[in-house]
């Protein structure tokens, strides 16, 4: 201590003043602003962001590169070596009738699920938006399937749709019709899984529509009513156009999401009968994890990625132009 003081020329009065830079850096706390130097910010940023970034790199970005690379090989996931086969997997895919059938099934499944669901949920949201009794009860029960495990839903629905002992047979009897055998009939299996998919998700889009409805300024509708517009005209000319952006969002994200379905057909139909419900991810799963054709399955995954990416980019582009709230 003594020697240090002695060495600094100024003696006591100079002592509290800043020391040479090499000594001042370890204790920046003395100066309030020094905690937020660029270097300090960078350190905190790295500490906070890196864990997440690293995981995303390993489990989301790397897989894209890996899948793309493997799609040009004949790898079977078991033996270590991979042989380059060029575009052979893509060639096989584009000439395979199964691929087109699966793609068609996926589009039919997504299209019908999304559009029927949107129509229903718009209707339900408009009805629920009124001043009615038991509103909370109706909203809760319509939303409940959305939080229910899809595996459970698929198994319970199999029993509900049982052609001999299921509840749904009662409705067909009331109508004097014979109940279809649903998942055992190639013509009825697709409607069955579409129905379950709608059941599962209609509450989600209803809640979104309800939020969108409450975002609409009621004065707009009120003004039209004062001008003598009927309720239908108010809905058709004012409410519906204002729901345009959220509808677009629900259509595109709905299609993206529904195209990636797996559980409902996997449990209810295993893609059958006669591949009538074999949809994309089911096909991919079977090729990769049951037949171990990693190369071909990767080509399938890459094509899927491009389709989903295209839909996402369309969504981003349109929502930039459309969204005006």
């Amino acid at each position, binding site marked *: 201590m003594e020697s240090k003081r002695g060495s600094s020329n100024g003696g006591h009065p100079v002592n509290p003043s800043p020391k040479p830079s090499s000594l001042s850096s370890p204790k920046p706390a003395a100066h309030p602003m020094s905690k937020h130097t660029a270097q300090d910010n960078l350190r905190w940023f790295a500490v906070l962001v890196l864990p997440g970034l690293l995981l995303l790199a390993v489990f989301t970005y790397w897989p894209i590169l890996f899948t793309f690379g493997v799609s040009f090989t004949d790898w079977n*996931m078991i033996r270590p070596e991979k042989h380059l086969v060029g575009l052979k997997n893509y060639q096989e895919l584009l000439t395979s009738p199964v691929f087109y059938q699966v793609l068609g099934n996926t589009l039919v499944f997504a299209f019908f699920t999304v559009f029927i669901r949107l129509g229903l949920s718009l209707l339900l949201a408009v009805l629920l938006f009124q001043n009615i009794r038991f509103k909370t009860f109706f909203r809760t029960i319509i*939303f409940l399937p959305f*939080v229910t495990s899809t595996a459970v839903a698929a198994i*319970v629905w199999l029993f509900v749709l049982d052609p001999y002992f299921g509840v749904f047979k009662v409705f067909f009897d009331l109508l004097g019709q014979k109940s279809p055998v649903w998942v055992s009939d190639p013509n009825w299996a697709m409607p069955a899984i579409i129905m379950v998919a709608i059941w599962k998700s209609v509450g*989600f889009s209803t809640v979104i529509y309800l939020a969108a409805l409450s975002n609409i300024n009621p004065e707009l509708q009120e003004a039209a009513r004062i001008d003598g517009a009927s309720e239908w005209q108010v809905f058709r000319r004012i409410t519906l156009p204002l729901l345009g952006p959220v509808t677009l969002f629900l259509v595109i994200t709905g299609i993206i999401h529904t195209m990636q379905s797996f559980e409902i057909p996997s449990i209810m139909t295993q893609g059958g009968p006669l591949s009538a419900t074999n949809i994309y991810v089911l096909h991919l799963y079977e090729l990769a994890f049951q037949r171990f054709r990693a190369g071909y399955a990767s080509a399938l995954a890459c094509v899927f990625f491009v389709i989903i990416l295209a839909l996402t980019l369309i969504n981003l582009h349109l929502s930039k132009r459309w969204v005006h709230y």
Partner: protein
Amino acid sequence: MDQPQRKTSSASPSSLGRSALTYLVLGVAAVFAGIPFFWMVTSALKPPDEILVYPPRWIPSEIRWQNFVEAWNAAPFGVYYLNSLAISSLQTALEILIGVAGAYAFARIKVPGRELIFALVLGTLMIPNDVTLIPNYITLANLGWINTYMGIILPSVASAFSIFLLRQHMLSLPEELFEAAKLDGAHHGQMLRHIAVPLSMPVIVTLALLNFVSSWNAYLWPLIVTNSDAMRTLPIGLKLMRDAEQGDPWHLLMAASTFVVIPIILLFLFCQRFFVQGITAGAVKGG
């Protein structure tokens, strides 16, 4: 101005008809939504000989709790339950931790290149899960984490959606709070802990609930990455029980289905507000 308006919308015959139609449509929707739950619970309580009968027995003649015991013992459901509970909790905790840390950094720490890195994070939203299945299986196999909790959890704990939603919220917090803390000499860790996290609690709770539910219900990835009963979760266990039992013993399958969904349904009924906030925040604002 208000007078004629009120006259048309009160008790005129057409509005009566309209509200009758409203209740009719909502009633049909509620029956459609509710019937699988009703059928699941009543079947779970029926004696076996009342399952395969037509016309169906809506209410069981006697309540048979024994079905739940038999279903519980038909497969190692105790293990599945513990696994689901542990995996969903751990997954949720990690995802929130990573989400809060990332969100704070992207919202509150200015460094060069921040927007670019944030774009990279958001970019992962465009990558469908299904494309990552094979590579992630290989990565985890190389790490020796197939059939472990880590293997089930790790690929999905960094979520761009959680980071995005929390960041939006933290951007909306008043700047003055952070300025004042800076003047008092607080560093970022302190501001994160004492300002950003407490003020983001509603969003954190919402995200945690949504995460917990989706983790509890997860099916495809746990199916791929587990290969023994010791690691399986409830949805996979239920599916395997159905595959294993001959001739579909529906009373047992419905009993098992009931105890798989009960915790989530209770969670939802008690915290409905948070669920609704969460999904609308993601769609209406985030879209």
